[in-house]
């Protein structure tokens, strides 16, 4: 910074506000504190990786007889990884189109005076605790879906492997599809918030150029707003995916889990997710079981880390072609 040398070059007046020559000591303390905090971030993350690794490692080296099922770690974590990714991808598939539409509504369709308040409503959706979504999902949404949507899907879309009719449709509604819908509601505000921001940043001139060519409002959006916001929308979606991958309580409360890989999303046999499995098993686990759960947590950390890294990369690479 240009001004870094200013304090030294000035004489120390005896004004109370300047505090005599405590300036130098104060500067050192303040600099030290803020540098320490920044360094602590680094140390904390190093500690997270180290401790998870250290506590997870005995899974591979320890005495397997402590476990009630002695299958290998890969065959234990495999269905969980599948369930985590499958359910999150479903949630993302449901949430993204709706989130883009809602973001467009707030940024380009709603009355200008209202758009701030509408954004506030969407933010409240993001602030509702996940445990509340969980009990709402199992207490309200699951019964409705199992009464209306699932029998219909079974009758009319049974030829698809996702709704195949070879197994019984869940009557409790505690299925992967219900979980995916609840997760979609939870990640929608994240995707909406980021998309809304980039849509609002579309250069005014791009939109006006399009309007001047006689474009309708939708054509303006297709020609100017969406191309400009594309990378922002994608990175928002990836952040939402990261949130869905790590979501624990809604899944743990709603899903009725089984062990294995299941494509059908409306039956009673559902692949569990890593996070929900930890929450369900941890309170009753001891010894090597705990180590195994921590190792699965490490796997989850690596997956979300990868997804978030991709999201940042897309966000940073964005806007290059459209800047103007």
């Amino acid at each position: 910074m240009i001004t870094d040398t200013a304090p030294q070059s000035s004489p120390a007046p005896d004004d109370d506000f300047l505090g005599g020559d405590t300036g130098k000591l104060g500067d050192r303390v303040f600099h030290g504190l803020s540098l320490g905090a920044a360094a602590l971030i680094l140390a904390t993350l190093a500690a997270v990786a180290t401790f998870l690794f250290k506590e997870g490692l005995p899974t591979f080296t320890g005495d397997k007889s402590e476990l009630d099922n002695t299958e290998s770690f890969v065959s234990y974590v495999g269905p969980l990884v599948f369930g985590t990714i499958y359910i999150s991808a479903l949630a993302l598939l449901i949430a993204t189109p709706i989130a883009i539409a809602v973001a467009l509504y707030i940024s380009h369709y709603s009355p200008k005076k209202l758009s701030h308040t509408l954004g506030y409503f969407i933010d409240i959706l993001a602030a509702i605790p996940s445990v509340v979504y969980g009990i709402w999902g199992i207490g309200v949404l699951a019964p409705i879906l199992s009464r209306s949507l699932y029998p219909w899907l079974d009758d009319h879309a049974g030829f698809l492997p996702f709704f195949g009719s070879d197994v019984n449709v869940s009557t409790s509604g505690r299925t992967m599809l219900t979980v995916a819908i609840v997760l979609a509601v939870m990640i929608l505000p994240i995707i909406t918030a980021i998309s809304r921001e980039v849509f609002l940043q579309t250069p005014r001139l791009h939109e006006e150029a399009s309007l001047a060519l006689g474009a309708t409002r939708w054509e303006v959006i297709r020609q100017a707003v969406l191309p400009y916001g594309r990378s922002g929308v994608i990175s928002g979606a990836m952040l939402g995916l990261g949130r869905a991958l790590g979501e624990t309580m809604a899944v743990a409360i709603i899903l009725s889990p089984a062990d294995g890989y299941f494509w059908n999303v409306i039956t009673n046999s559902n692949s569990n997710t890593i996070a929900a499995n930890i929450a369900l098993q941890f309170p009753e686990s001891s010894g090597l079981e705990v180590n195994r759960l921590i190792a699965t947590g490490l796997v989850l950390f690596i997956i979300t880390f990868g997804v978030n890294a991709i999201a940042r990369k897309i966000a940073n690479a964005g806007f290059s072609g459209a800047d103007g």
Partner: protein
Amino acid sequence: MTLAAEHQPESDTESPTNDNDRITSGSLAGRGMFAIVGASFVIGALSWLPSGSINWARWVIVTLLVYVAGTYAVARIVESPRQATDRLATAIVTSAFALVLLPLISVVWTVVDKGSNRFDWQFYSETMRGVVGEGGGAYHGIVGTLIITGLTTLFAVPFGLFTAIYLVEYGGNGRFARAVTGLVDVMTGIPSIVAGLFAYALFVLIDGPGHRSGLAGAIALTLLMTPVVVRASEEMLRLVPNELREASYALGVPKWKTIAKIVLPTAIAGILTGVVLAIARVIGETAPLLVTAGLAQGTNWNPLDGRMTTLPVYTYQAYKFPTLPPSASIDRAWAAALTLVIIVAVLFTTARILSSILKPQGLK
């Protein structure tokens, strides 16, 4: 010829005859749209007929579907295909927004409706110690939530704020500052259950396996809250105009006093808002507390030792593993959920009020 009619490619088919002189002829403005929306509502209401009972969700969904399809069909006939596509996009976007309000209204309505069964003084003044069946309360959960969230705020706010000060005021564009920025991003992405496992693993080293305490819960939540505080404060500090800093330096004020007396007070509204929103986020966290603080039946005032119940964990436990009779347990769960939602709503409103009353006069 009118303006709108000129846009029609072949106006011989649907050319308006009697109101040629009106500029809106051949377009679907005002009354036409109103009629479509009204008709959609009526058709939506007719969808009750087969089942014979009022079904709000079906009403809304049928209305929206008819609205979208009807708008496109009518616009296609009356206006041009391009206008029809535009109207279709408007209809879809508007319907999507209405659709999203459904779960929000449903969640809030359900929580208020079912939570009010046990929204009484007993719920807020008694614990679950020795309670079998009906009665009991969540006093211990509220105490636990306040202690753990308080500790978390105590840790995360200075930690996050000083990191933000480093990034904005000291780090510049240096290598270390960029590394820290990247790591804060990584931290933002840590799944909450993983943060809980980390805190557990940390305390296992200190105290041995099976450790449960409020402090471990606070450490886990600190991991989740700090990056949110860093992001919010960093953004606010960067908004402070550089002229203010330079004016202060020109008067001979040391850098730390410039930060403490000029920069921070200017940004305080935004920072406080960010902190309150961060608290609102962590106060509803369940998973990390389930593995670190656990569940107790009575009040535990000591965060250093023993299990400590929090409201989210209480809600989860009472709903997922109800004691007999289940209805009493589930009522308690909904009451705890209502309490949580009220706390979050109060924090949200506080953040809004803070940001409006503390906004410095010079800015904006």
